[in-house]
């Protein structure tokens, strides 16, 4: 990667990361559908990891996670039982989102653009399911709260509508990364993932 390509990569990622994060938390109502706000941050990290590999996925994930923590970090009980806005949960969660989206189904999906939506569906389902499980366990362990959302609510009012709005958000982001992304023609040249790119089936729309 020459200097020009490196500069493009850094500038484009910086602009997209700040824009996506700021837009989601500043105008949540604009991105609200079916009672859920599109998780632009999550979708952007998934697509970056899926299309451009592990390194990009992790780095983008860490930056987006840091901004998520900064803007609206989760609150837990601190050591003195007073609520504390902790830092690092977003970092950790999005580090894994970036990593998993670049690794999972790599052979099967071959980073093709039309199958990126499937990756968004899969990672969104995983993220929100794990989020509910962690939240339930945390409430039980730290506050001894035994009640939690019903399975029906979690499935039909939380996870499924969220997946749907994330898929809708994925389409414009996918086009942006393809035609105005960090790499020329939307293809990261050095990314071979140990498989041959000679069959030209990788990253084709």
């Amino acid at each position, binding site marked *: 990667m020459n200097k020009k390509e490196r500069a493009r990569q850094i500038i484009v990622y910086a602009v997209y990361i700040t824009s996506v994060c700021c*837009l989601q938390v500043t105008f949540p109502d604009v991105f609200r559908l079916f009672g859920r706000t599109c998780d632009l941050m999550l979708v952007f990290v998934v697509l970056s990891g899926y299309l451009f590999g592990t390194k990009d996925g992790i780095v983008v994930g860490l930056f987006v996670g840091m901004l998520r923590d900064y803007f609206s970090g989760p609150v837990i009980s601190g050591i003195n039982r007073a609520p504390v806005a902790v830092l690092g949960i977003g970092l950790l969660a999005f580090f894994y989102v970036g990593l998993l989206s670049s690794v999972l189904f790599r052979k099967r999906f071959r980073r093709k653009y039309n199958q990126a939506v499937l990756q968004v569906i899969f990672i969104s389902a995983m993220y929100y399911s794990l989020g509910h499980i962690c939240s339930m366990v945390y409430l039980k362990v730290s506050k001894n709260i035994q009640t939690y959302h019903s399975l029906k609510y979690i499935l039909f009012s939380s996870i499924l509508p969220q997946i749907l709005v994330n898929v809708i958000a994925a389409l414009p982001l996918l086009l942006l990364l393809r035609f105005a992304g960090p790499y020329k023609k939307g293809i990261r040249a050095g990314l071979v993932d140990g498989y041959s790119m000679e069959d030209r089936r990788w990253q084709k729309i």
Partner: protein
Amino acid sequence: MRRLFENKVLVLVLATILLLSFIILSAIPGSPLAGATKPLSFIVDPIQSVFQKIGTKLSDFYAAIADGMEIRKENEELKEEIAELEYKVQQGEEARIRWEELKSAFQIQDTFENYHIRGASVLTRESDEWFSVIRINVGTHSGIDTSTGSYAVVDARMNLVGRVMSTDLDSSKILPLLHEGFTVSAKVNEVNGATVIVSGDIILKNKGLCVVSRIPSNAVLKPGTELVTSGEGGLFPAGIPIGTIESFDDSDPDNLKATMRPYVSISDIKDVFIMVPNTEDDTESSESQQTSLPTPTTAVPPESVDPKESQAGSDPQESGEGAA
């Protein structure tokens, strides 16, 4: 060493441990990591403000076009209303002067006179169900510093919104009333009203409700009953309206429970007000202003109450206030 770092699993485990330690350290009160976002705020806050301004201008522009005709009509009506209101203001001013005289004479303490109010705009809202604190545009530069304590946050009608959790240079994080980590000691807004605990609840949050617990066994909370902050715990001054009772469950007499609908609609608020306790200097200056005002000869100036003194001895944890 290089070989060690070539092992991807090991790197992954190390990164996870590092991030987990970061989370644990940031949860410790007074940890230097709590201020780790300050340099970030220096870069991110101005960018975020630009986004907010652009968004506001766009929505204002759209609203100006859409509402143009309506505004013209409304403008004419408002002009008439202004004339009426100006007359009322004159009457109100006279009443205010009379009130000030009576207040001094009877030593009535204004509930919030030991606080000054600082306005702020909401910058960011929740990202998802778990990343759900609100960020506002005042921070340590504006004199808001949570290292010495937390602050109550209210809306334009003085209804409780939440509390300030942490501050950066030009922004602060607010824990909203509906969040499951939020707790406040409240009382029924009646003479000798029952004292209860109002807290956020993960299930009720989606319906815009809070849970009311620790209800005395002899208390009956009818729907519509107003709850205000009790002042116990010292975190929130007494008398801030919180909301009204939505439902009351007395099926278990040992564990009476109720739900409360807050007055404030968290998703709609754009501006909030932080109640900052007056420092000794502020109290002295306000006292000197009061003494310079003409007061009746029988009047005794109200005693200055140091909020720190009033808070001393009242542990927020004892009353459950602010505890997650």
